[in-house]
């Protein structure tokens, strides 16, 4: 497996985390636990599949257990396709959009609770 991973070293990769966040950057190292380091990393935040922002994160180390998957992304064509479909906005703008989506969700959940008090099984 690690032989195969060596192919990704120094390539531009996408890292998908368990909390749903995406990071792009240059893979500089990995170890047997699947811990990764990315140089010149950016976090790509997407809202509603319509707008995104790249937030500079510098050098990032990821703990292996939080990584769902990662893989090379060096394809200009794929990046251009992405840019055609989604609008690039500033970090402030994307945070405002995130906030709006979160509030919509919260409103829906409040209504749900009024109608149906959900059973809390705690352990799950």
């Amino acid at each position, binding site marked *: 497996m690690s032989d195969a991973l060596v192919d990704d070293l120094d390539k531009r990769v996408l890292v998908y985390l368990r909390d749903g966040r995406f990071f792009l950057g240059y893979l500089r190292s990995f170890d047997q636990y699947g811990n990764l380091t990315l140089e010149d990393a950016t976090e790509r935040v997407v809202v509603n599949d319509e707008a995104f922002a790249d937030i500079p994160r510098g050098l990032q180390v990821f703990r292996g257990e939080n990584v769902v998957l990662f893989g090379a992304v060096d394809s200009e064509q794929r990046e251009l396709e992405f840019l055609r479909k989604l609008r690039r906005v500033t970090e402030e703008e994307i945070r405002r959009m995130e906030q709006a989506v979160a509030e919509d969700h919260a409103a829906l959940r409040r209504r749900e609770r009024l109608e149906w008090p959900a*059973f809390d*099984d*705690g*352990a*799950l």
Partner: protein
Amino acid sequence: MLSGEQSSASGPGSTAGEYEGQAPATRTPTHFLRKVLGRPVVVKLNNGTEYRGTLVCLDGYLNIVLENSAEFLNGELKRRYGDTLLRGSNVLYVGTIPD
């Protein structure tokens, strides 16, 4: 669901006596599990689901096989099984139920 069994608090093998220092070997959790083999038990999983049936066997990971078991969620019967293998990582407790 389980009422009127207060009197059966001291089950088989539990003798009256004082406990000083290290619990005697007959009082370890492991010993209890050996003792209830072949007896009706209730197994509760971390998500609250209960399985009632005869304890056929178990291992160190707490994987459990029950015979003639029934699945309950919130006290409601959901399903019946013949033999069933429960994965140990989800087991919260194994308790006795009256024969």
